[in-house]
């Protein structure tokens, strides 16, 4: 795209009209007026349409092809969700409408909340958080409030495996905790000894995602939970990987006390180029009084909003990313009980299938079996050819797919983290495997070609260092 919408601005252009104004224009006191008008784009409707249509055509979504971005669960986003979220009976409702005039919205939230509690094995839920990280902050706030209320101010440490997503430690610090990093064992799961060593009186919580970011199920989870509970700590479940296990095992049953879900991952709501998502927080009943309010209750008179007794307070104005919740509800209604489990099974099947095709060539440091995703290490390849995870990723762009997550988790060198999700067909997986294997070959025979990749995209690799050194952050 040549030029921003601001550069396309021409004085006096407009495509905007309003009805004739039948009231008198009033004046704003001089001293309250801004000096000059904001320099917003002045464009005709056709220019606006072409500009953003062109930008869309320089973007890649799940609808464009395979998007195996590990940890992000880029599954297909059903179109029916968009239709549901566009209903004027949902979009044209004020968040502070009298409850009796918003029963449909409350029912949607209440119903979704109930389904999510069942799936997670939790007792109560708030749909307020807007994303996973927001949910983490919220859950940790609840833990903090609970520990405070039960006289455990000394509990200030949150343990986080070194394989965890960066949001976990960052959220813990935001919630006023000290973070203790727990090294992973050689097999990629929590090192029980290290955990034991870190646990103590000061332990507030352990944050864990299960399966973890290596795509491995923490099979000692019961023991882990016991150890943490033993010292009076709580267990936080990062629900980003719930897609692997829904219908198969439940965080609540594994011993977790509080968790978030990512509706934009597990529950098929679209990612929107980075949001809006939704990160509901679910918990066991002893933490329910601490949930951020309002939560939805069902009474004989209908649905209503309620402030939990010891609520940590709102973490967001109003009732959460409501339209995202509507999409997730549509998804769960479509799948039903059996579909939820089927999704998890096939997510795991797809990942294992792809892993089986790649592990003969690429180094799969944690073995040949995985849950819904797996991590390869390109360290050896990098050493022998100079071609690392980033280069292979860029090569994949030229082959028409979105690259996997790279350089995460941090504990794997030259990591490439692949999550196909259940909504991919075998042909797509076969084609991806073929592309990956072909690039491996290219790395050995013609590494220069890969270092120059991508060549078919609107731009080549941007100079990121220059961007950070000399930031140009507005047009």
């Amino acid at each position, binding site marked *: 795209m040549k030029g921003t919408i601001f550069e396309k601005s021409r004085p006096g252009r407009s495509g905007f009209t309003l009805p004739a104004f039948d*009231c008198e224009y009033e004046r704003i006191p001089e001293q309250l007026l801004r000096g000059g008008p904001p320099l917003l784009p002045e464009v005709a409707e056709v220019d606006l349409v072409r500009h953003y249509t062109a930008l869309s055509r320089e973007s890649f979504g799940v609808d464009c092809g395979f998007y195996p971005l590990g940890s992000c669960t880029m599954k297909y986003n059903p179109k029916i969700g968009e239709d549901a979220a566009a209903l004027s009976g949902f979009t044209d409702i*004020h968040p502070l409408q009298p409850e009796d005039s*918003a029963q449909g919205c409350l029912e949607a939230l209440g119903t979704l909340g109930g389904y999510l509690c069942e799936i997670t094995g939790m007792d109560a839920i708030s749909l307020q958080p807007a994303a996973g990280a927001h949910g983490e902050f919220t859950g940790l706030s609840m833990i*903090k409030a609970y520990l405070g209320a039960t006289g455990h101010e000394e509990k200030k440490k949150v343990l986080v495996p070194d394989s965890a997503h960066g949001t976990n430690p*960052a959220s813990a610090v935001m919630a006023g905790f000290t973070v203790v990093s727990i090294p992973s064992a050689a097999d990629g799961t929590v090192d029980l000894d290290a955990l034991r060593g870190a646990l103590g009186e000061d332990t507030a919580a352990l944050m864990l995602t299960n399966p973890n970011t290596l795509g491995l199920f923490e099979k000692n989870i019961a023991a882990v939970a016991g150890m943490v509970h033993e010292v009076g700590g709580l267990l936080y479940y990062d629900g980003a990987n719930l897609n692997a296990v829904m219908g198969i095992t439940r965080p609540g049953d594994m011993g977790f006390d509080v968790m978030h879900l990512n509706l934009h991952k597990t529950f098929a709501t679209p990612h929107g180029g980075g949001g809006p998502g939704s990160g509901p927080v679910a918990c066991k009943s002893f933490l329910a009084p601490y949930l951020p309010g309002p939560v939805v209750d069902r009474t004989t008179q209908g649905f209503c909003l309620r402030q939990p007794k010891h609520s*940590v307070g709102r973490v967001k104005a109003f009732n959460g990313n409501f339209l995202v919740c509507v999409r997730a509800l549509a998804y769960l209604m479509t*799948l039903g009980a059996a579909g939820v489990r089927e999704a998890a099974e096939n997510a795991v099947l797809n990942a294992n299938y792809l892993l089986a095709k790649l592990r003969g060539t690429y180094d799969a440091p944690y073995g040949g079996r995985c849950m819904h995703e797996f991590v390869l290490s390109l360290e050896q390849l990098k050493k022998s050819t100079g071609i690392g995870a980033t280069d292979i990723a860029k090569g994949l762009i030229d082959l028409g797919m979105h690259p996997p997550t790279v350089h995460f988790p941090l504990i794997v060198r030259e990591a490439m983290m692949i999550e196909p999700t259940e909504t991919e067909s*075998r042909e797509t997986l076969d084609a991806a495997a073929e592309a990956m294997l072909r690039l491996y070959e290219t790395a050995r025979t013609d590494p220069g070609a890969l270092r120059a990749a991508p060549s078919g*995209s609107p731009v080549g690799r941007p100079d990121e260092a220059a961007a950070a050194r000399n930031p*140009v952050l507005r047009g």
Partner: protein
Amino acid sequence: MSYIPSTPEERLEMLGATGAQSMEDLFSAVPDHLRFKGLLDLPPAASEFEVISALKEMAGRNKVYQTWFRGAGSYRHYIPSVVRHLASRAEFVTAYTPYQAEISQGILQSIFEYQTLICELTGMDVSNAGVYDGAHAAAEACAMFADKNRPKVLAASTVKPMTAEVLRTYCRVAGRELEFFGAEDGKASSALLEQMLDTSVCCVYAEQPNFYGLVEDYGELTRAAHAAGAKMVIGSYPIALAVLKTPAEYGADAAVGEAQPLGMPPAFGGPYLGYMAVKAADARKLPGRIAGATVDAAGRTAYVLTLQAREQHIRREKASSNICSNQALCALTATVYCAAAGPGGLKEIAMRCVSLARYAARRISAVSGFSMMFEGFFFNEFVTRCPVDPAKLETKLAENDMLCGLPVQTEKGAGILWCLTERNTKDEIDRLVRLLGEVSA
């Protein structure tokens, strides 16, 4: 159905390729005692037709009012058709955060444009790509300026209750103090602020307009804050910024706010969009994503996510931000909305808000018992007294397909917070006034 392409036969073949004996086998790492036995207690699968029918019925159990007089943080403006059409392009909707720049130039450029827009509206130098909502933006801004030496946040008692609550949550959890300074005649008092300012205060937060719709003296408040070495954060209604003095012009250090009025429907509260912008010097303190312009090897302009040293995936527990997914599609929506309206359109909308609100205030306050609660310039909301039980008033108006202003408590007693946007008409106000007359008679 679960949107799974593979057929049962294919699944078997694929299973074979993995070396597993069965689906169960794939889950062998999950200890048996943790396995969920049987089916979850969810309804059975439903067809698309059933799902959409059920959801239409559910939506039908909400009342969509023809006429709105309620705002209080969520506003109904007209959304040009083109906004929905463009923001619903599948490539935008189904992409994720643009980690791979080369395949995401469209989205990155749209973020860059959004940042430009926010800088233009607020007068600030640097905007991030947006946060969860306006209240969250306020909380993040205060957190941004807090440190060990200055752990205290002061907020005007006139800020929206929702913002206040979220500020409270964030401060409490992080162990920051939060205090509210009082108001006089509905406006934050810089005198009262000064009394509370000391070297423990990291920043002061006020809203433009405030909860009662009134425009405060942000210049005075800012001077007071700065005099005490504290930063000033102003949370503005973005449409008001088309005409009102900007946070930058008042000298603010951070401008935040709720961008919902810029093309997002009220939608029972979300998704909305928090905007955040700061002075250049504070760029590296901003939480959230930031897009920047650079070049590729061929010298072509290219956009990337930048200044990532702030972020959780780089510095983890040392990050100044835990934000990962934000509200990207909302930021795109706001950008398209503002480009569709243009500076002229946005100004026209703002002037209609102001003018209709003034007309409404004059007319409503002339009805016996509905006198104005406060004096001073207001943008598109104002508070009147209410001589009857607000619930009764709400019902009466609802019968006439009108969403009543919000019943509120103020330091001067209970009242109604009325809101007007360009969606309202003189005629609606006249009808409202007639109904108020009947109620108060």
